[in-house]
């Protein structure tokens, strides 16, 4: 076990490097992933080590990247595709939902699609239009895909390796705002054999409210939990990690104790992951619920310009307001009908 302190971006880079060393069927492809090492340097140095055919700078076409990755999978490879920014995944949408997600069931198990699709993800970095989207719910609604999110360097390193060894296609969402956060990473661990990737993680224990977050908002949720403590509110924070499948065992075990659920995400509220969590937890824990699950999310608007994003993205105060709501304490919406 050697450990190192790495940023999340370097941890993913180390995970990719390790995966390419472990299995020469692993290839990396995308726009600017080679010589430049990606606009966030996540693939930095890989082309020097593994050459320009295992680390391919592709033409500027996302459907082309995913469609050729499907063919590479037919040829026995395990492509890791980088989509340069969240907002640029839509041109590849058809190849992802109609080909990547369906090939294994279409061929009755004959053809596996062990792709990993890396997506720099979400807001909080003051970016230009189309550089801050949270499209995860479009993929969690698509059967045949697995969807994971990471929130810190150690997790990012472990999960990228698990995603690459998975025989199913995995969308791997990387919160941009966390790229430069440092943390301890254990480098020698072999990829988990116990599907650790599928499990949610309780990152703070508490008794009054269950607060579910993922990706870039896990830290914000933890900060809210700490702040709430000073007011005597004990919040259990769960990092959902896997967005599809969802680890309901971990979530419901917590909600059965707390009786109260708050879900937070950057994505728009309507039809976001919070809707599924709220609906499924209500189905599973109805008689334990003291209050309707509360959603604290981005608004139902296109991602706003940089100067306004702070009002759109859930921050500690908005999360705490949601906590007050689920506890029937004074909150911003108390005088609304519901």
């Amino acid at each position, binding site marked *: 076990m050697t450990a190192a302190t790495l940023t999340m971006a370097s941890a993913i880079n180390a995970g990719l490097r390790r995966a390419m060393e472990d299995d020469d069927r692993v*290839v990396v492809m995308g726009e600017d992933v080679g010589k430049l090492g990606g606009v966030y340097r996540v693939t930095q140095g890989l082309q020097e080590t593994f050459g320009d*055919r*295992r680390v*391919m700078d*592709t*033409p500027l*076409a996302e*459907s*082309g990247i*995913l*469609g*050729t*990755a*499907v*063919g*590479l*999978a*037919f*040829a*026995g*490879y395990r492509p890791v595709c980088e989509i340069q920014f969240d907002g640029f995944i839509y041109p590849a949408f*058809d*190849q992802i939902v*109609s*080909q990547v997600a*369906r090939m*294994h*069931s*279409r*061929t*009755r*198990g*004959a*053809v*596996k699609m062990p792709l990993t699709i890396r997506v720099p993800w979400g807001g909080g970095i003051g970016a230009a239009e189309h550089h801050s989207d949270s499209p995860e719910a479009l993929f969690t609604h698509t*059967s*045949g895909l*697995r969807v994971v999110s990471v929130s810190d360097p150690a997790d990012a390193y472990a999960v990228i390796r698990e995603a690459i060894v*998975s*025989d*199913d296609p995995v969308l791997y969402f990387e919160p941009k705002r966390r790229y430069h956060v440092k943390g301890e990473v254990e480098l020698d661990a072999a990829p988990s054999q116990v*599907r650790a990737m*599928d499990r949610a993680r309780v990152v703070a224990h508490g008794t009054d409210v269950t607060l579910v977050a993922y990706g870039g908002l896990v830290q914000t949720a933890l900060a809210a939990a700490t702040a709430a403590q000073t007011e005597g509110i004990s919040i259990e924070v769960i990092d959902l990690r896997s967005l599809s*499948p*969802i680890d*309901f065992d971990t979530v419901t075990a917590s909600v059965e104790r707390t009786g109260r659920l708050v879900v937070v995400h950057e994505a728009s509220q309507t039809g976001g992951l919070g809707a599924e969590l709220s609906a499924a937890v209500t189905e599973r824990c109805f008689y334990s619920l003291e209050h309707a699950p509360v959603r604290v999310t981005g608004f139902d608007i296109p991602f706003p310009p940089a100067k306004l994003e702070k009002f759109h993205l859930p921050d500690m105060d908005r999360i705490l307001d949601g906590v007050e709501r689920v506890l029937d304490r004074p909150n911003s919406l108390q005088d609304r009908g519901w």
Partner: protein
Amino acid sequence: MKAALLETLPGITPFVSLIGPDGHRDTTGAFADLVADIGPAELLALYRDMVIIRRIDTEATALQRQGELGLWPPLLGQEAAQIGSARALAPDDFVFASYRENGVAWVRGVAPTDLLVTWRGVAQSGWDPFIHRMATPQVIIGAQTLHATGYALGMQLAQSDSVAVTYFGDGATSEGDVSEALIFAASFAAPVVFFCQNNHWAISEPVRVQSHSAIVDRASGFGIPGIQVDGNDVLAVMAVTRSAIERARRGEGPTFIEAVTYRMGPHTTADDPTRYRPADELAEWAAKDPLARVAAYLRDAGVLDAGAEAEVTAAADAVAAELRAGCLAMSDLPSDALFDHVYAEPHPRIDEQRAEHEAYLRMFS
């Protein structure tokens, strides 16, 4: 020399033809040389293939009319394009086709009955792509051209001899995916052959809706050699496909083939071409029938006498009988097959829903 042949192509688009509608065979020139080994006996075998797949097509159409199939996409008129190209491939090459390439599937050794699995609605696909080295039918227009290109990148990386061949239609050339496939193939000089069957129609849209200039011209625009061939001439199709395959195998990159042919039937059994297609057009192409010209040549060559004709017909009838029997004998999958293979690895929601479904069925038993 073949190389030279194709190196000269970008920009230029010769129209390759070796056996005309009158059955006369041209034995001179570079392309003729590529099929010098195809004598009367070998041509008879190709003719046999064409007769059989036309018979499969007729039988499957009948099965659809009789309610045994939900749908069938006929290849009537495109036999030469499919047999000539498919017979040019090595066993190890890999095919990525659309939904109409039943003739190609026949050549790749797919059992006729397995062709029907998709159209009877029993399963989304009827064979293992790795056994026949042919992907199952692609319904999303053009998507398979990128898969072929990616497969070719893999073969290049693995330094394998295997070449990818992708089949698509004139309409498909308008989909962004096909242009992107040509761009990726050119960028990486990938060993892939783009085989476009220009059958003049995309459902009700004539090819001029997609392009006012020759489809084959697309290729040179992307820096890829293009050849236009008489798609109703099985020998010419074989010659150009061989040259393209060899070129790819030599590591010289992709080639684009436009096989000029005609969809004699409806788009699918659900379509009524009389709503949009001029009758004289059909007559014009009937005169260029891909089977008739080879039969004429073979009769002149004296290898297609009454006996041989009877043998070919009998063989086709046998395949058709096998097809029909296999279709009627096909049983549905159990309902919990719904949950099979959605994922390759364990998935809790699938397990949960499978259990819900079983519990639900138990209520009725």
